[in-house]
């Protein structure tokens, strides 16, 4: 019974390998580069991500490799999310350059950890069996604990790190136990085999076991994407963590966890679909309402963004709850659309911090349109996209989501979602109001000049949001195609 080494072309692992190499270079050789030139660190990281993106792109129509199915999936679904995650990583690097140099804490390890976290996510996303998924999950998690606690001397950052660690570890315990029960019931870790075995099972006891593992996995992944009963950590951690890390967490770890959640639930728990869709529906309703109402009168923008990202997870779960083919493709598209606006807002917070003093209250935005009209315009586009006002991509995302909800009959949920997005208008528009309709506080009247990298980040994000908003055709097809590839497995 000597299994042979699984032979597969190395090209499928190129994206991960490139990132690992550059992460190691950054971490261990950082000392040498730091003095040479202050841009090298971030540029190494950025260009390696671009290279990884190129390789991942090339794998788009990779033929299905038979015996590789067991561990590492290279289907359209995984590639789509890998690209999304790499985009997130690139944007995070761009915006953190300014932030780190501003608070003069720029070190190689930071970029290394960001890359390692991205690797973890990519493995997690394309994992075919529970072990790989779990290990990818843990890599991402541990890297984020460290990043959250990055500012050792700042009390809020270390408290955030501690909180995130304790709850994260606790949650990984829960996920593991879920997986253990699942393994107990089916005897294998591979999702495809699991599907086959589960549909074969009949005994009430096994189903009961599966039922409990389903509960525990819902809880575990619920924690990761900060859905309502398990969301408590998100506001504190996002407020405490350094801003680019908060951006990375709110976009990266959420998207990756969501991708895994969809894959595991649609493939492994195919039999229980109506059951977990019902739960997801309730959770999404609660999340949407909680996220929006809690954010109503927040003065600290980071905390408000935390609540708003919770709300957006609610919208995505709405899509997931309303059916597999249309609903989930809506979720894919919404995930892509949501990340740009979210990271954009965090980037605008970074722009406001000057000489290390973090400015996070809505009052700091007052009069921004006079000081810097372009940035004010960009922030308005982000806010409009988050609210879901037409010219922006956010609208297309929400429209497609509500379409899926109405199609699958979740009318009441759609109405809740629609009302929630009206409530969200209020606190998003408060920032726009502060920017355009308030006189600038005279203290920081000097016009701020964003660093070049931040400028690039802003322009990319605005361009994508408007382009997708006006002509969403190609993105919709991309989402549909990538979702259909999951079908082949189950």
């Amino acid at each position, binding site marked *: 019974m000597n299994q042979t080494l699984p032979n597969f072309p190395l090209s499928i692992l190129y994206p991960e390998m490139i990132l690992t190499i550059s992460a190691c270079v950054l971490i261990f050789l950082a000392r040498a580069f730091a003095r040479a030139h202050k841009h090298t660190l971030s540029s190494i990281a950025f260009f390696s991500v671009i290279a990884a993106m190129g390789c991942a792109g090339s794998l788009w129509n990779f033929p299905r490799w038979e015996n590789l199915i067991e561990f590492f999936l290279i289907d359209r679904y995984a590639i789509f999310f890998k690209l999304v995650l790499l985009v997130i990583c690139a944007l995070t690097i761009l915006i953190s350059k300014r932030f780190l140099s501003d608070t003069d804490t720029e070190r190689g390890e930071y970029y290394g950890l960001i890359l390692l976290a991205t690797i973890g996510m990519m493995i997690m996303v394309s994992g075919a069996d529970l072990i790989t998924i779990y290990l990818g999950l843990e890599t991402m998690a541990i890297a984020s604990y460290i990043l959250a606690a990055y500012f050792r001397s700042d009390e809020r950052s270390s408290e955030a790190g501690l909180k995130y660690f304790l*709850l994260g570890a*606790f949650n990984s315990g*829960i996920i593991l136990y879920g997986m253990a029960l699942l393994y107990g019931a089916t005897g294998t870790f591979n999702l495809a085999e699991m599907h086959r075995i589960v549909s074969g099972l009949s005994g009430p006891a096994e189903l009961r076991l599966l039922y409990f593992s389903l509960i525990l996995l819902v809880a575990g992944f619920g924690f990761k994407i900060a859905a309502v*009963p398990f969301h*408590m950590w998100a506001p504190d951690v996002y407020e405490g963590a350094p801003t680019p890390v908060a951006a990375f967490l709110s976009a990266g770890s959420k998207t990756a966890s969501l991708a895994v959640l969809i894959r595991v639930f649609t493939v492994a728990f195919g039999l229980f679909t109506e059951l977990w869709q019902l739960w997801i529906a309730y959770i999404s309703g609660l999340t949407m309402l909680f996220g929006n109402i809690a954010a*109503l009168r927040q003065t600290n923008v980071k905390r408000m963004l935390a609540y708003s990202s919770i709300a957006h997870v609610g919208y995505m779960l709405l899509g997931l709850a309303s059916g597999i083919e249309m609903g989930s493709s809506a979720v894919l598209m919404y995930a892509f659309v949501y990340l740009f606006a979210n990271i954009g807002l965090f980037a605008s917070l970074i722009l406001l911090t000057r000489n290390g003093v973090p400015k996070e209250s809505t009052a700091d935005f007052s009069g921004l349109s006079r000081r810097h009209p372009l940035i004010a315009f960009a922030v308005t586009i982000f806010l409009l996209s988050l609210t879901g006002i037409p010219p922006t991509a956010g609208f297309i995302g929400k429209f497609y989501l509500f379409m899926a909800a109405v199609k699958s009959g979740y009318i009441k949920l759609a109405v809740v979602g629609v009302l929630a997005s009206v409530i969200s208008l209020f606190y998003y528009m408060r920032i726009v109001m502060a920017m355009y309709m308030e006189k600038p506080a005279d203290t920081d009247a000097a016009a701020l000049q964003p660093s070049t990298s931040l400028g690039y980040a802003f322009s990319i994000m605005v361009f994508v949001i408007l382009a997708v908003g006006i002509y969403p055709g190609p993105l919709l097809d991309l989402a549909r195609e990538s979702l259909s590839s999951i079908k082949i497995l189950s």
Partner: protein
Amino acid sequence: MVALIPLLPALGAAVNGLFGRRYIKENAHWVAVGACGLSFLAAVFTFTSFLREPQSYEVRMFEWIAVDPLRIELAFLVDPLSMLMAMVVTGVGFLIHIYSIGYMHGDGGYHRYFAYLNLFMTAMLLLVLANNYLLMFLGWEGVGLCSYLLIGFWFHKDSAANAAKKAFLVNRIGDAGFILALFLIYGQCKSLVFHDVMSQAHAFSTGLATAIGILLFVGAMGKSAQIPLYVWLPDAMEGPTSVSALIHAATMVTAGVYMVARNSAIYALAPAALNFMASVGAITALFAASIALVQRDIKKVLAYSTVSQLGYMFLSCGVGAYVSGMFHLMTHAFFKGLLFLGSGSVIHALGGEQDMQHMGGLRKHMPITAATFTIATLAIAGIPPLAGFWSKDEILAETFKNGHKLLWGIGALTALMTSFYMFRLLFLTFYGKSRVHHDKEHHLHESPRTITIPLSILAFLSIFGGVLPGFPPERGWIHGFLSPAISSVHHAKEILHGAAEHGAHALSLLDLTLMAVSIGAALMGLAAAWYFYLIRPALPGQWASRLKSIHTLLFNKYWVDEIYLSVFVRPLLKLCNRLWDFDLQGIDGIVNGASRVAVKSAEESGRFDLKFIDGVINDIGKLFDKWHDILRRWQTGFVQNYALVMVIGVLVLATSMFFIPYHF
């Protein structure tokens, strides 16, 4: 040619209105008078050509509103009724235009006055010449607009502005009734052209005809100042006297009578409406005459006399004598116009003084005005040879003959009162001892020729205007001329028995006695006024003190204005304010979430939030605010609370297994 009649004054109004202020300024009157004169000539020409071959025809201009079944065109109808009215309107109008040159000389808004006057002529002619109800309604409201503009001409006077607004609003109430009648008519016969409506009139049910009749009469009440809606006419004296002459004597107020005459076919089917109209007319006549007895302001007396005379006209229409109503309308236009213009020249001479207490003995200073005024007073009182006698006598005769004995009595009594207050006015202003202020005494002079010429022409018309058309009572020229246009049931009856005793056209005994009674009433009024005001001037003062209560009641116009104010206007304004508060607190309140909640947590309320949050949060409602606070409080900050919530979440999911019926 017919189209020219309304078109010319319209052009005059446009020219004066647009270029008046900068270019024409002083000689605006050439444009206005010229336009009105030409229009008069056009009217005369069409009248004479109509007399030659009396065949009524329509002239179509263009299609105004056309929505599938409804087709309304701008078209004019030429028939005896409209021709008579056109002649009266353009004739009297032209005279008043000339009069205005002298009267309004030197006034700031000279061009504006003439522009409005021409606009009024256009609107009145549209009303008169219209061939369908909607065009008539256009003229109807246009005339209301011009009366608003002209009454409020001296708008710096608050009283004038209020009077103008009152006039327009009361007219609007009348017009509301009119337009509802329009809808009823359209609902029934799918067209608003007179010709079609009259031809289908026989098909109306009596109930429908009565409803239309009463609603049309409501419109007429608003326009011709009958009992409930007459309050605006006395206040309309705020405008220039020439305006009062033209609008509130000769033309606008008579529009109601013309409209009733035009709809005689409908009214024929609604005897109830006719009786209602007759009684309202009679009561208004008596009511107004009684008030006029004690008024001191010369123009107020004339205003109430107009209301009273209009009451006469509606009384005659009410009893079916449309022709005599129209005849009285014509004669009334002449002598009432003359009276107003005469009083205008008196006021002009006395530098704006209108109170009769400060007049008297003006005969010496203003011989022509005095003479013409005396002729007009004789005419209105109903002294035989003059115009007033023929038309009023005919009305009283017709009322008696058609069996309305009580109304005839009221009419006779009113005739007595009319002659009394008219001669009172005459003697107080022109005869007797002069009570004019000494400083005004010395520059009392006769008015310029532009004023006296129209006065004398009108005086001539007052004398011969009654005799020529109406000599043999009920069978005069005017009856022959108008009868084809008035198709009424009574009329048909007349032709029947008229043909029988066609030969003996001598006056029957009954006619003679009725004539004697009306002449007697007029002379008695004259004698009483002579005795009261010339022989024993102190007597009126004693009677007034003895009959204190009646005098004050009459003098304060039965407090009608005050009643209206307290019953309608004030409560309406109070309602408005309460509705507005309801709007602010009520609906907004519900949406805002009850009262304006102060922001609870102090450290949250930065400058920005308090001002802003306080307002907008109320919009989303206090509900979300309350929920927000609860949910926010859940984030206690303790890690282990979060972990506990997670475990409880899992527990809830696990126990939900028992509730959800799943096939385990």
